[in-house]
């Protein structure tokens, strides 16, 4: 053991509070040495322990008949999709690394989330991402955006899993602290599911994959503090990704799991060897003896804590059945990957780490982990003054623009609305030959599950502006929008994963946002029967310059679609089709892109939203799709009805002739009708000869006839006026990102 024991000041530098330091002494029955203190500091960091969020996360619904693994039990959630198959899916943040080194930060985010999927034995088949940046006109934002997109593309493209969807928002609140959330979904046969556990005294413990280097040390701690100018000094805390190694590791890991020799396996993400050894041991109620000298390292002379905390990418910890060592070695030799036995399983329930022949750390596994001895805090929260102030917004104080076509042109070029083509064409969206949305765009990605008639229907959603204005309603809307996207695509919502991006939890107002958002998520998930399978909490998304980011609880939703014939696309199909709006229309422009960007009015509540109306809308839409009564369905979101019309029209360059229904003219302002973002509405098109069937089928459900799809390369005609030509609309819609990023 090292003689010089660290002080409480050292502990604080590592992010351990004096109270936590005392607790460590109590657990060990003595003062920790530096290596042990480092182990506790990362395992008890916010990132690994969820100490400031777990109380509230536990209130979320977790159960459904399809759930094979509940939230927090394994590296990712696991949902039964029938045919002896399960879907493992999860979303995770890589915000702070991406703020400092956008390319590697985003790339390793993609690598990390995919390892979470294949460590369970599942082959990833689809990726999505959810991104937030500052002002598009700032050079820093452009640098971050270019780097993040290239990082996601280079890693995902080489790894060979398609990026099938995502979302991007720009707002000054993300200027210093961008958000990079990566989602992956994979498929596993239910009899080949691997677990992150460890048991069986004498079973060998292997480290496989890349060699261990000095990158990413204290990355978990770094993720657990505010971002600042000094953060760029933390560059070594950012890891470097190698998608080629990850691809080999994927193939070798799946081959290893299929061999049936694996007891437990866990990828090394945050806190590297420390986290994987302690979590697997705690889960299996065993211990481990690990010899750090046997860990393949990139450089000589690494210290014990560096090997233990390294977050070098593309590594796994594996416990296999004793006697199968040679088989394990052969698989990794085949794929030219490192594979080294570094220890054995013991019955001590403690982790003993040896280095240079000496015992350098002796810690109980259970006390390190979430659900074990890791601290759990109940934080104070308080409603901020802005919340009530925003509620006082009055639409009558907003002047009606004299020319609404000007608003239409303005919105099509807004960074939050304009085409994302510049981004998504840099991602391989087709590898795997399963993405059915390439040639039939839909609100959610529809991805075929090979060998079955089943499809995953996937969407990531969150409007942070809505959540900021009203965290409870805003977060419920995020869940509703994800479900609406899935329903519009023909799918049935099944479960969610969440990535909870918030500011500093020690700030009472931030914590109020967090608590309120969880409440909103809970009620929406209960309504749609979409339990939470897991995810990730990312606090400390704030900077001294910009304050906390908008609370951004990104929802990644999994839906299922049995049979491609029930898939629905978002684009208009032919001239003469009737255009209808499903759902009630409100005189509401709150928190809309129109109000926020055109009028520059930031203080308004979340848009109108009613959970029951939303659920009824989903039911009606599913009935219309199953009945073959509609030809396209597109949900109304940013930019409201006009933008939805334009997006449905522009895919095939159709024009349209639509009017605000007479009966709505008295109660809904024209700007609210065309640009408002009140929730629970879907734009559909109907073949001319199906109109009466369509109307009869809806009975009491509210709907409005708007007009017709007109000829291709024509005009967008609204309330009797040609607002703009389809070619002009297309030019405006497609120009913003390429011009800004050229």
């Amino acid at each position, binding site marked *: 053991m090292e003689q010089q024991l660290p002080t409480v000041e050292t502990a604080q530098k590592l992010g351990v509070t004096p109270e936590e330091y005392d607790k460590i002494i109590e657990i060990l029955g003595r003062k920790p040495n530096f290596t042990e203190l480092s182990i506790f500091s990362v395992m008890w960091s916010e990132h690994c322990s969820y100490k400031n969020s777990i109380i509230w996360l536990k209130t979320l619904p977790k159960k459904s008949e399809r759930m094979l693994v509940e939230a927090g039990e394994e590296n990712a959630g696991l949902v039964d999709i029938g045919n002896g198959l399960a879907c493992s899916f999860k979303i995770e943040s890589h915000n702070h690394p991406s703020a400092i080194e956008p390319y590697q930060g985003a790339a390793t985010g993609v690598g990390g989330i995919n390892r979470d999927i294949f460590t369970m034995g599942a082959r990833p088949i689809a990726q999505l991402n959810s991104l937030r940046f500052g002002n598009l006109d700032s050079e820093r934002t452009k640098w971050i955006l270019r780097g993040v997109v*290239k990082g996601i*593309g*280079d890693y995902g*493209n*080489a*790894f*060979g899993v398609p990026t099938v969807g995502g979302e991007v928002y720009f707002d000054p609140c993300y200027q210093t602290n961008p958000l990079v959330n990566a989602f992956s979904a994979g498929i596993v046969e239910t009899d080949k599911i691997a677990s992150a556990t460890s048991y069986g005294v004498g079973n060998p413990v292997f480290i496989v994959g890349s060699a261990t280097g000095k990158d990413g040390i204290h990355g978990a701690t770094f993720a657990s503090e505010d971002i600042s100018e000094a953060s760029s000094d933390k560059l070594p805390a950012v890891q470097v990704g*190698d*998608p*080629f*190694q990850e*691809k*080999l590791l994927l193939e070798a890991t799946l081959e290893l799991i299929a061999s049936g020799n694996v007891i437990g396996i866990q990828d090394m993400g945050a806190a590297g060897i420390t986290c994987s050894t302690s979590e697997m041991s705690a889960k299996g109620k065993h211990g481990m003896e690990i010899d750090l000298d046997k860990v393949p390292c990139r450089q000589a002379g690494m210290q014990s804590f560096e090997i233990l905390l390294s977050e070098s990418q593309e590594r796994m910890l594996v416990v296999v059945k004793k006697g199968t060592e040679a088989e394990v070695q052969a698989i990794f030799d085949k*794929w*030219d990957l490192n594979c080294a036995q570094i220890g054995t399983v013991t019955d001590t329930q403690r982790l003993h780490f040896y280095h240079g022949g000496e015992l350098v750390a002796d810690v109980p596994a259970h006390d390190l982990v979430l659900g074990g001895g890791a601290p759990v805090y109940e934080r104070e929260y308080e409603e901020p003054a802005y919340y009530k102030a925003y509620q006082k917004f009055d639409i009558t104080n907003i002047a009606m623009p004299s020319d609404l076509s000007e608003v239409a042109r303005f919105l099509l070029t807004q960074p939050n609305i304009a085409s994302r083509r510049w981004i998504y*064409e*840099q*991602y*391989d*969206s*087709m*590898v*795997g*030959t399963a*993405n*059915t949305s*390439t*040639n*039939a765009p839909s609100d959610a990605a529809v991805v*075929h599950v*090979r060998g079955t008639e089943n499809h995953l229907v996937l969407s990531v959603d969150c409007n942070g502006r809505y959540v900021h204005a009203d965290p409870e309603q805003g977060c419920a809307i995020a869940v509703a929008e994800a479900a609406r996207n899935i329903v519009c695509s023909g799918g049935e919502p099944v479960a969610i994963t969440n990535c909870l991006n918030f500011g500093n939890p020690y700030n009472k107002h931030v914590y109020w946002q967090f608590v309120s958002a969880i409440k909103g998520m809970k009620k929406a998930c209960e309504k749609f029967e979409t339990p939470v399978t897991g995810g990730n909490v990312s606090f400390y998304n704030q900077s001294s310059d910009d304050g906390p980011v908008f609370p951004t609880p990104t929802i990644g939703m999994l839906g299922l679609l049995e049979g*491609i014939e029930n898939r629905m696309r978002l684009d208009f199909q032919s001239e003469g089709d009737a255009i209808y709006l499903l759902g009630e229309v409100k005189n509401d422009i709150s928190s809309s892109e129109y109000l926020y960007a055109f009028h520059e009015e930031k203080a308004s509540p979340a848009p109108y939203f009613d959970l029951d109306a939303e659920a009824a809308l989903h039911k009606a839409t599913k009935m219309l799709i199953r009945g073959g009564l509609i030809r396209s369905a597109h949900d109304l979101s940013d930019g409201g009805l006009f933008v939805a019309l334009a997006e449905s029209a522009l895919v095939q360059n159709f024009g349209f002739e639509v009017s605000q229904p007479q009966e709505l003219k008295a109660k809904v302002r024209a700007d609210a009708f065309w640009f408002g973002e009140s929730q629970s509405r879907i734009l559909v098109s109907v073949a001319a000869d199906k109109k009466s069937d369509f109307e009869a089928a809806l009975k009491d459900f509210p709907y409005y006839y708007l007009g017709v799809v007109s000829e291709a390369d024509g005009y967008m005609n609204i309330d009797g006026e040609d607002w703009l030509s389809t070619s002009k609309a297309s030019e405006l819609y497609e120009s913003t990102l390429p011009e800004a990023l050229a």
Partner: protein
Amino acid sequence: MKFGIIVFPGSNCDEDIYQALQHIGGQVVKLWHKDTDLQNVDCVVVPGGFSYGDYLRSGAIARFSPIMQSVQAHAERGGYVYGICNGFQILTEAGLLPGALLRNNNQKFICKNTYLKVATTDTLLTHGLDRKRTYKIPIAHAEGRFYAPKELLAEIEANNQVLFRYVDAHGKQGADANPNGSLNDIAGVCNAKRNVFGMMPHPERAADARLGNTDGAEILKMLLQKIEA
């Protein structure tokens, strides 16, 4: 027709082309890059992906794999070899196909549908295709700009070695239709002996009605027809 698909470390379209060829009725096996036995296949397929990570230059390392010795010999004997995307890059690096694939002129990875016109029907791969129509086939690459020095390019054209050219949806050539800056809008070529083919677009990604595009299956089917006819 028996196909053998080479799996390099980093190949990621091997399973896709495997499925597509099986779907159209081909007999298909996978060949491991460390082996040298081609298992008596008629056509070796070098699939897309990022062989060895493509960190040096696309395809630059893969050509030194043990199996590539056997592929060279197979080609010299007149056997068919077909490279798609990274496979095309590997075959040019190996000297089995003329020219080189350089970084796209926009310096970015591009994944999207492109449209192709058949430039010659005097090869197995293109013999029954329709020269009057366009084929919608997606691309996904960062290094797909076909380049050859002036004299070599003239020779490729004079010998009718261009298989496909990029066009727009209406069949017109031009800068807007060329996604990567390839010389003469070239999307695919064959060797002088016309038994080795390479193309950047991915026909296997357009070979399943479920994906809403089967133009690629029509191209792949050419490989079956002549031998079985």
